[in-house]
């Protein structure tokens, strides 16, 4: 069994305010994993440590069997792409140029984008269904369209691992499902390893094979959604009162909230 991401006793985070402590997990190649937890539980911190935005304080992390500390940012970007919840561009780049930026980790210092880079960018635009917007300016698009462009940029990196930090935070239900459907396709067809953070627990339960549940910087549960999602855990972690039922369409666990 080969692993995309292995973390043992991972600790780290922002200097003073917030730290993740002793997180361990092994994501298999082609896995579709999710991270859930309340605000401030350390979900984004985890992705930032894995993508070297924040330093790893202690513990071991390997990305495709290479120790994280030994990977340069460029080497990391050739293996792993990251999509955030939104990107604000200072200047009006056109969509195709934004997606081409995904090829930057593969270019030499003075080299220019070649025909292969353009071809890869074109394919990425088609896979995320934004080919028709290729000549538009990035800030003329709606949030849903823009997120798919950023996903296309990530795919242009031809990554083996994709990290997503609340990729659907500003999207309506239709676009949200659309993004997850595209991710599922990439996962199934290209064996792309996915690690996603989202607050939509039902969708995460539907799409992820394994969930990491965080609270206050520590891991509270780890396992298949059907095994770990229970009213007691959700009450403890999210402070919500709920029942778990089955989605009649997919048989995935579904959370019914008690708001009374």
């Amino acid at each position, binding site marked *: 069994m080969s692993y995309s991401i292995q973390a043992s006793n991972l600790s780290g985070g922002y200097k003073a305010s917030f730290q993740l402590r002793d997180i361990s997990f092994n994501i298999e190649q082609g896995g579709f994993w999710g991270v859930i937890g309340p605000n401030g539980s350390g979900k984004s911190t985890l992705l930032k440590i894995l993508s070297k935005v924040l330093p790893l304080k202690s513990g071991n992390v390997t990305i495709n069997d290479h120790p994280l500390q030994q990977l340069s940012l460029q080497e990391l970007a050739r293996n792993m*792409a990251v999509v955030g919840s939104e990107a604000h561009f200072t200047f009006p*780049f056109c969509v195709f140029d934004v997606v081409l930026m995904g090829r930057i980790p593969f270019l030499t210092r003075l080299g220019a984008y070649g025909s292969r880079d353009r071809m890869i960018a074109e394919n990425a635009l088609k896979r995320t269904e934004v080919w028709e917007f290729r000549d538009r300016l990035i800030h003329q698009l709606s949030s849903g369209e823009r997120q798919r462009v950023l996903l296309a940029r990530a795919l242009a*990196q031809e990554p083996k691992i994709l990290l997503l930090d609340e990729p659907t935070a500003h999207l309506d239900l239709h676009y949200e499902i659309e993004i997850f459907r595209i991710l599922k396709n990439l996962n199934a067809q290209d064996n792309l390893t996915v690690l996603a953070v989202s607050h939509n627990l039902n969708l995460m339960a539907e799409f992820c094979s394994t969930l990491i549940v965080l609270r206050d910087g520590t891991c509270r549960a780890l396992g298949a959604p059907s095994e770990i999602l229970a009213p007691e855990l959700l009450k403890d972690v999210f402070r919500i009162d709920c029942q778990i039922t089955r989605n009649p369409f997919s048989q995935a666990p579904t959370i019914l909230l008690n708001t009374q």
Partner: protein
Amino acid sequence: MVILHIRLPRALLGLVVGIALATAGSVYQGLLRNPLADPYILGTSSAGTFGALVAAILNYHFNITVYIFSIGAAFLSMLLVYRIASLQGRTPVQTLILAGVISSTFFGALVLLLFTLFRRESFSILFFLLGSLSGAGSNILIVISAVLVLIGFSISMYLARDLDAMSSGEEDAIHLGIPVERVKKLLFFSSSLLVGASVSLAGSIGFVGLIIPHVVRLIVGPSHRKLIPASAIGGAFFLILMDVFARTVFSPLEVPVGVFTSLCGAPFFIYLLKRKQEEMTF
């Protein structure tokens, strides 16, 4: 003879300063992710003027001494600004802008103070305050500045694509494999060369470094590999043209060139802004 000894050095000075200002402007706008950034936003010009003023007051009237004092003060202020804004190996651009504005205000106040106290001595370098190419004295200084500008321009071009990657934020750039802090430091250094070399020769000439990158961006797009060289050409052309106006329109009086860069630049910019509103939203 007039052409060779007066007009040519002055045109060369316009070329060097125009390239420096427009290049630094496009780098700062990209680096600081701020469309309002211009080459003077971090206080380099105030510090450069302060240095020149100190040299004048100490009665060093040789061009070279004024030049060295000015460029030295400009560099020192940039080091200071970067040190103030850095915390634990990171330099957030918003803090950088804030530190720059504070440095600019501080050195601006010192300049006013010295100017008030040493009115007679200061008069010889009045052109620094107004911004002008009329100080073009010694050719060797133009050559030194040209070399500095060439180095600054080359570094900027070398890192141009990194600026593209940083246009949606530094975290995005890290995800694209860019060592952001190192790139920022290098670009900051190269911009200091550009701005220092131009301030120490011509004082602060407004508007060129702000408007030219915006105009050029409308024509060639925001990709920095095209934006930076096109801005350099545009900046040089614009400044030399405005200097011709500055010398001739009210002849025999010569108007500081900064007056014309703003007087002609502002309406042209508004015209472009109205015509291409869609591409000018930030």
